[in-house]
């Protein structure tokens, strides 16, 4: 029996591991996953060409209304977007929402701007131009970062807004996380955003970002999980954890979801899918940290398991 899914690329390494491991648990079912991006995942589940979708940004009300049945968002893991940069000596920078919005809006153009110096006393910031690097391809990371910027800067919200693709006021567009990092590595004075796992793998510096509680937090699995614990999560699980409350919460973090229909058309497939979701939300979660993904906190996991019970097949 083959169960087909498609969607986001961010959680793919973890999902891939899950499918491999689950084949040992239940050899009668095989999972197939196509990395076509969150937009593709949403499109395919709407058209029912796949059994489940995967997305880094929740579906809009409009698109949910177009679905032939009720679609459930099942959160699986969370990740962080880290800010990385190329400065002489690779100092550890502290940035806050206002500074980031200023930089990406093009209002703060030089590294030795007063606002940046104020946040980083004792760091020798050069008088060089800031070269902004962002994603050119539509991406869950962009959605997460712009969601965060919209929450911390009214001007950003008005001028740019949030989305998987936005109109960037300034900067170079690079393809993929790898693209952003290759430019940040090369261009002196560059600053860019990328998934935490990629930044760590490339051994690049990460900025500490000021969270809603006022503390400067390093992006890590722990600080992401803390953001999730504190986040207020509505009934339908479509939530944003950007700028979450919580003393140790990292403010630029977000979840990834699986999209399934509440009513499954095929009873056998539906049963297998539900069994897999239960396994993923329990045993699967334990595999997440090894691959640099933040597993879901217990309170959320309980709610998810309850929600999975409502799937009819």
């Amino acid at each position, binding site marked *: 029996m083959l169960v087909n899914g498609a969607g986001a690329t961010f959680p793919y390494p973890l999902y891939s591991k899950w499918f491999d491991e689950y084949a040992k648990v239940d050899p009668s079912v095989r999972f197939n996953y196509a990395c*076509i*991006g*969150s*937009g*593709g995942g*949403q*499109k395919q589940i*709407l058209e029912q060409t796949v059994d489940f979708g995967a997305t880094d940004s929740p*579906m*809009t009300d*409009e*698109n949910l209304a*177009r679905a032939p049945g009720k679609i459930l968002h099942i959160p699986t893991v969370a990740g962080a977007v880290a800010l990385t940069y190329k400065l002489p000596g690779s100092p550890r920078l502290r940035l806050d929402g206002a500074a980031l919005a200023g930089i990406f809006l093009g209002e703060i153009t030089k590294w030795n701007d007063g606002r940046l110096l104020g946040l980083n006393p004792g760091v020798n910031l050069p008088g060089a*131009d800031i*070269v902004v690097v962002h994603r*050119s*391809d*539509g*991406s*869950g990371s962009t959605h997460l970062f712009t969601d965060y910027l919209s929450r911390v800067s009214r001007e950003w919200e008005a001028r*740019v*807004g*949030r*989305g*998987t*693709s*936005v*109109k*960037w006021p300034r*900067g*170079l*567009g*690079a*393809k993929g996380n790898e*693209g952003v990092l*290759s*430019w940040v590595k*090369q*261009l002196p004075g560059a600053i860019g955003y990328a998934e935490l796992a990629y930044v760590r793998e490339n051994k690049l510096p990460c900025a500490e970002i000021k969270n809603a509680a006022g503390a400067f937090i390093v992006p890590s699995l722990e600080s992401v999980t803390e953001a999730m614990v504190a986040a207020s999560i509505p009934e339908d699980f479509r939530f944003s954890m950007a700028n979450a409350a919580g003393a140790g919460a990292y403010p630029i973090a977000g979840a990834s979801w699986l999209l399934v229909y509440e009513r499954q058309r095929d009873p056998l497939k539906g049963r297998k899918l539900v069994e897999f979701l239960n396994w993923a939300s329990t045993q699967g979660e334990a595999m997440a940290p090894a691959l640099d993904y933040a597993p879901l906190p217990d309170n959320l996991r309980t709610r998810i398991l309850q929600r999975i019970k409502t799937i009819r097949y």
Partner: protein
Amino acid sequence: MKSERLWRPAAGERVFQWLVTMMALGVVALIFIIGRELAHGSQPALRRFGWRFLTGAEWDPVSEQFGALPFIFGTVVSSAIALAIAVPPSIGTAVFLTELAPRWLRQALSLFIELLAAVPSVILGLWGIFVMVPWLREYLFPLLRITLGFLPLFQGPIYGVSMLAGGIIIAIMIVPIITSVSREVLRAVPESQREAAYALGATRWEATRIAVLTYAKKGLLGAVILGLGRALGETMAVTMVIGNRPEIAASLFAPGYTLASVVANEFTETPPGIHLEALFELGLVLLGITLLVNALARLLLGTLPGPAVSPS
């Protein structure tokens, strides 16, 4: 018995003709199907934006403002730069291969040109990111700014990724196709033309210029048009070095964005909606530009004197 023997070959002949005709019609049908799918997919965008789509310079998925102008500009300018850089060396190489090179060198050089054609776009793009762009940023662009910086074309901040980098990488990709087609065209020039020139006392270069190049003008233009066609659609290598910024700037050092690049970048992650339809419309615009360029090329080739040695 006799009638059977006469009947079978004729039927086979008809089947063969039918099959070949269907394949040819299939190609034509494919173009129409592609055009129709693009038009269908972009319907709502076509209705909402109308002709403003071609003149609008904003690409804002959040406020749903979509205009194709920066991408049209990027595609046209990067292709123009690519032609300017690629055509002289390509035709020069073709002339060298047909007129001047000794046989052993001819084969070796042809092999290298074919190898260049075989390099996948993505690989060339990777080379572009890690080798070409740093070199441009550290050596060529500052040099251009020092020598030609009085022109607005060579002003502004230097990142390396730029419209010019995009044009250069496209040039590298189209050199093989222009060279090989030009070579065929030049080879097809009858020997009598050259002999006549030599008989009149022409030097090597004069014979080449007067007898060969003039005769082959139409075919060479055909080769250039083929190169242009490839340049317009080139996607992966370009998007890796052009900077992906939908802005119309005077400077070649500034980042740019082409129609093919933006579709490749944004299509997969875009959920259904007006943004996706606008991307379909960009595809339609690119198809339109390609067809327009080909039509103009045919017209141009028609007005030129000389035999139709163009292999296209």
